């Protein structure tokens, strides 16, 4: 004879043990030291008291007054497999902690066994909404070590594709952010416009998502015939529709109520936490690597760096919406000024020969064989190259020992660092605002966990 209540209790223990993240998770107050609690509450995860208001720290709170609940890892509003542990008092978030790693597939380790030619297929899968950005960061690091020049047409193609990618990524953000706030029509519109860009990617690179288009030495293929028309259509459509989104969302009272003044972050906090991208610019810091430390040909095109004032949800929304328009502006300039010439470096050690050359030249055949079996060798050294991806500074730290594979490939993922701001932004807010916080921080979990 067994007591059903005991069985339930046992079962709960089993469930708790299965889902526990041990020390990585948010601990109950009774198990948290005063010091740590103060730090967590102060800066929530864990700034040294930057925003600590002593009145807010309620050490005496008992465990049965508050509740720790899990959001995720399979919650639709967490944009992937982010697990949030929220300590709630009623509907207010007291503390929170992000638990990550559910999508960890060891891509940095994988990067060490793939050679430099294959490496692009690996990094392009990290931030799956910005494949061009990942490939660009990686390729620029390899090119720096090789000290090779990329032909001007390749530079401008890269810039064109990077900005199109920024538009598509921000459109997905507009879409999912709309969905999180219940504006499901925005979800449909965002994905509709993104489809135009993905179709162009497919036409250019052959794939829609994980392109492996930008490669060390240039890009994989020249732009297709008639690309000017396609790009012009994309720019016209997206620009025009961005004003429709404006009408749909910007002035809408429900949308404003959940965005304006919600979850602000100060510039000092953002800098201290290493936060970059729209999250940093929303606090009024005009830091955009495209402007501050130009790469590619960004110093030759005109665009505005969009900054916010209050660092709240609405600023982050407005920045992304306007960055779509700025990207369209850059794309139009790429369209006008696209130089002719090679789309990849003609160094045979880096670039595979054209297919036709293999039939007639022994040397070309050897180069082709060497490139696709062994890959090319990169001089020993280490390099850090950074670009401004949609989510912030995407850095690639590459160590080469002179072989054909990276000795160490480390990617500084902007989402991974930006995620540290989540507990700070959520603190003291409502549970429903926690959804908007995750949304406006815009982490891509493929990149967070790598």
């Amino acid at each position, binding site marked *: 004879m067994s007591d059903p209540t005991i069985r339930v209790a046992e079962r709960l223990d089993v469930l708790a043990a299965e889902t526990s993240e041990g020390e990585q998770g948010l601990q109950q107050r009774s198990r948290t030291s005063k010091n740590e609690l103060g730090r967590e509450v102060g*800066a929530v995860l864990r700034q040294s008291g930057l925003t600590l208001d002593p009145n807010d720290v309620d050490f005496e709170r008992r465990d049965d007054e508050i509740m720790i609940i899990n959001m995720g890892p399979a919650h639709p509003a967490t944009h992937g497999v982010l697990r949030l542990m929220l300590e709630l008092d009623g509907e207010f978030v007291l503390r929170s902690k992000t638990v*990550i790693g559910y999508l960890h597939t060891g891509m940095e380790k994988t990067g060490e066994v793939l050679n430099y030619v294959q490496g692009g297929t690996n990094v392009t899968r990290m931030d799956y909404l910005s494949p061009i950005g990942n490939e660009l960061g990686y390729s620029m690091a390899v090119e720096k070590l090789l000290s090779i020049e990329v032909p001007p047409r390749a530079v401008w193609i890269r810039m064109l594709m990077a900005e199109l990618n920024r538009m598509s990524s921000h459109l997905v953000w507009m879409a999912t952010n709309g969905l999180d706030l219940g504006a499901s029509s925005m979800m449909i519109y965002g994905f509709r416009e993104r489809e135009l860009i993905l179709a162009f990617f497919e036409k250019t690179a052959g794939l829609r998502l994980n392109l492996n288009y930008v490669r060390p030495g240039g890009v994989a293929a020249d732009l297709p015939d008639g690309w000017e028309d396609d790009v012009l259509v994309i720019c016209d459509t997206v620009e025009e529709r961005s004003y429709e989104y404006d009408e749909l969302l910007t002035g809408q009272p429900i949308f404003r109520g959940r965005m304006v003044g919600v979850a602000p972050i100060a510039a000092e906090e953002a800098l201290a936490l*290493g936060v970059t991208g729209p999250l940093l610019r929303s606090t009024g810091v005009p830091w955009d690597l495209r402007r501050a430390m130009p790469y590619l040909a960004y110093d030759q095109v005109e665009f505005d760096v969009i900054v916010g004032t209050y660092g709240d949800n609405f600023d982050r929304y407005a920045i992304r919406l306007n960055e779509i328009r700025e990207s369209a502006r850059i794309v139009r300039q790429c369209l006008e000024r696209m130089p002719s010439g090679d789309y990849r470096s003609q160094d045979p050690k880096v670039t595979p020969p054209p297919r036709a050359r293999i039939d007639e030249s022994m040397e070309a055949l050897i180069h082709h064989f060497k490139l696709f079996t062994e890959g090319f060798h990169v001089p*020993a050294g280490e390099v*850090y190259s950074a670009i401004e991806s949609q989510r912030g500074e995407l*850095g690639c730290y590459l160590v080469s*020992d002179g072989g054909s594979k990276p000795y160490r490939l480390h990617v500084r993922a902007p989402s991974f660092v930006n995620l540290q701001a989540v507990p700070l932004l959520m603190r003291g807010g409502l549970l429903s605002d926690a959804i908007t916080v995750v949304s406006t921080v815009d982490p891509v979990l493929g990149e967070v966990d790598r």
Partner: protein
Amino acid sequence: MIPLPPAAPPGVATAESLAADLGCFPTREQYFELVRAFKDDAFEMCVDLCAVDYLEHLDRALPEGVAPSRFEVVVNLLSLSKRQRVRVRVQAGDADPEVASLFSLYPGTEAMEREAFDLLGVLFSGHPDMTRILMPEDWEGHPLRKDYAVGRVPVQFKEAPGPR
């Protein structure tokens, strides 16, 4: 090459590098003080922190006077006002790599130091929460170490009870 900040501890080896405007090679004792000097010298952001396992290259080229060790912690600092990057490479030790945590200077290194600990087993003294971040809590070993082969360990699952 940009100079070291005035408050830097004496005797820090420097070199030009591809990745940054200045590469510094402090000892473990100088490391924290050097980063603090950079922070006071308008390097507002710690952009990146990672570790490298140089098991196969213990004799790699380093500036004179720097004794190479197996593990190296690489810190990229960024000055927004001066638009400069600086890289600090500290030799973290061989068997039990450990360096000071930068958490009290740059709270944003919290996750990065946890990642370096998780994947390479470098300890950061003074870090408030030195736990794994990407791997499961009960994982054995540090996967990005060079003596940790790809696919050597079968996939580990949590201690799940048998079929219920």
